[in-house]
């Protein structure tokens, strides 16, 4: 059985799960409604109580929608951050906190981190299987956007070669991210520091000319200004990375004796297995630490997973409360129409018909609410995504997936089963007593 299930495609599993979740409502609906045509009456009741009915539907839609929105948002956030870290196979840095380094190197969050020195860089760059070893130099900013020094190959790697304009050829040229406010041809004057600690004019009359724009990466790098690493070193009065006999060289190889140090080295190996070898080689050497950003993110997701669990429980509890209050509200409405229900019985309608009217009425409200809830969830997730994307520059695109559809169906199914109790109660009312009002 298990094997059979695992053998199905994910799409088939999703559809089957959705059907399984909907089965209670379908089976009960079929059994209860079979041979009856109660819908005109249900519509009439809905029209008579239109205000409470609309209110109940909205209540269900909002509670289901916020639950779905949060679940969708959380998944999109994980997806977005993983996507942003995708180009960072392996990072080597001076020993310290992996999370701090991850935030600095991948998400460009300013932080004070120790540097890797020239000989160590050379050792990393010259290690077997290393395809790309890019130094990063942080610390400057331009109009609040980080200015990052690196090498041309890394820019190419980050964008898969998608650059509008061209790559820099000298230290005064810059390539900007896709979402940067700077246009090709603009002149950028960098300030020392970033955020609150910024020091305008600290670099004298140093400026960059924008000569290229990167394709979108969906990461904070989209707002960054990328310049040759040599330019950053020069601006800070550090060694230029190369021996004095080659003053105009840009990019590797760097001369260890003239290498001022880098907070992080982003490495791409020739193959996946080599990544593990390199990590083992540079992890815990005393000089360096090496980590996979993806793996560090996974650890974070594990923590977020607990938060998600808590969120799910909260959202389920709130949905249960809403379902319960809607059912209580319907019970009160049912009291208002008990004479009419008794009338139906008196006219000869079977108890099952009264059951069908009451259950059909409640279930219509719950199902309509759940369907609208999917829409509300989509809207909530879209709004949240836009806010998160704007604040973090991490491209977060929340969509409604099968998980959300399963949740909505599950809610409608479970709540409609609870509505059976109310419907059963409605058939227990004494006919004569109710008729006499």
């Amino acid at each position, binding site marked *: 059985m298990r094997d059979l299930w695992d053998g199905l495609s994910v799409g088939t599993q999703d559809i089957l799960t959705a059907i399984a979740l909907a089965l209670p409502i379908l089976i009960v609906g079929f059994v209860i409604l079979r*041979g*009856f*045509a*109660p819908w*005109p*009456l249900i*519509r*009439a*009741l809905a*029209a*008579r109580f239109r205000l409470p009915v609309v209110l109940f539907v909205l209540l269900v839609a909002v509670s289901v929608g916020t639950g779905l929105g949060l679940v969708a948002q959380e998944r999109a956030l994980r997806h977005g951050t993983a996507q942003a870290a995708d180009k960072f196979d392996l990072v080597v840095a001076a020993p310290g906190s992996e999370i701090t380094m991850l935030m600095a190197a991948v998400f460009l969050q300013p932080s004070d981190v120790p540097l890797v020195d020239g000989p160590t860089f050379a050792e990393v760059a010259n290690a077997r299987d290393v395809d790309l070893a890019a130094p990063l130099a942080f610390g400057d900013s331009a109009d609040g956007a980080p200015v990052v020094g690196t090498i041309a190959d890394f820019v190419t790697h980050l964008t898969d070669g998608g650059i509008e304009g061209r790559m820099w050829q000298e230290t005064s040229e810059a390539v900007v991210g896709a979402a940067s406010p700077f246009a090709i041809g603009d002149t950028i004057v960098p300030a020392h520091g970033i955020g609150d600690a910024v020091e305008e004019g600290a670099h004298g009359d140093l400026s960059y000319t924008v000569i290229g724009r990167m394709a979108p990466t969906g990461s904070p790098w989209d707002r960054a200004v990328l310049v040759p690493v040599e330019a950053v070193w020069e601006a800070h009065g550090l060694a230029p990375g190369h021996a004095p006999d080659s003053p105009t060289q840009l990019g590797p190889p760097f001369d260890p004796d003239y290498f001022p140090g880098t907070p992080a080295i982003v490495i791409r190996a020739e193959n996946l297995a080599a990544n593990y070898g390199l990590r083992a080689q540079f992890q815990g050497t005393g000089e360096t630490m090496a980590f996979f950003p993806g793996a560090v993110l996974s650890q974070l997701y594990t923590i977020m997973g607990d938060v998600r669990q808590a969120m799910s429980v909260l959202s389920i509890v709130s949905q249960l409360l809403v379902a319960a209050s809607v059912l209580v509200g319907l019970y009160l409405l049912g009291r208002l129409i008990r*004479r*009419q229900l008794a*009338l*139906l*019985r*008196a*006219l*000869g*309608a*079977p*108890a099952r*018909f009264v059951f069908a009217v009451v259950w059909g009425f409640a279930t219509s409200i719950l199902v309509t609410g759940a369907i609208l809830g999917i829409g509300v969830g989509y809207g909530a997730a879209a709004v949240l995504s836009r806010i998160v994307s704007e604040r973090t520059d991490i491209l977060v695109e929340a969509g409604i997936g099968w998980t959300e559809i399963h949740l909505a169906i599950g809610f409608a199914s479970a709540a409609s089963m609870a509505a059976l109790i109310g419907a059963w109660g409605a058939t227990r009312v*004494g*006919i*004569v007593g109710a*008729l*006499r009002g």
Partner: protein
Amino acid sequence: MGGEGLPLAIEDLEVRSTDGRVLLSVPRLELPAGGTLGIRGPSGAGKSTLLFALAGLQDRMTGRIRWGDTDLGALRSGPRTAFRALHVGIVFQDFLLFEELGPLANASLAAMYRPRAERPGIRDRARRLLRRFGVDEDGRTVPTLSGGERQRVAVARAMSGDAAILLADEPTANLDRDTGERLLADLLARVRENGTTLVAVSHDDRLLARMDRVVKIVDGQMVSAHA
């Protein structure tokens, strides 16, 4: 289906309240198929209780109520409901219509729960009855109808199932004199035409005067029965 009326035979009928008090006692009462019976008496005497008992709606009931070959007292609730659906039409004192449904939908209410095959017949009869009673069948909901129109819709509902038995609880009580007179004429003409057995609880002398037979109930006892 019904059509031809069913004869009624009551023997030793007693209905008790929850605390065991006798609410109604009818030792013997008979009515031939197609006969009309008026029930009169002061308020609270047990007239409606008798009517509900005749419909098989009354709980805590002993004795026998036989409609033709069927003893309602011997039936469980399910078969009693089925008997009602098939053979009994009821007109209530205060109409009890579904406010958001139009006249035709109200009059053909039974089509919602009767078997599919019977639905067109119920709708047809309801339509014809409404036309005959002079009520516009569609376009309006109950709140816009006059009292007389509502009661005629209620009568059409009671008759749309082609029931052999018609039970009416104060059918003219909420109507002005002329409207009541017209409804009564419509109702009786239809009942005689079909040979329906009619039992009507009423204070209305005009109605009672046109019944084959009238019984009086006081304090739950049948005190007079004259043909």
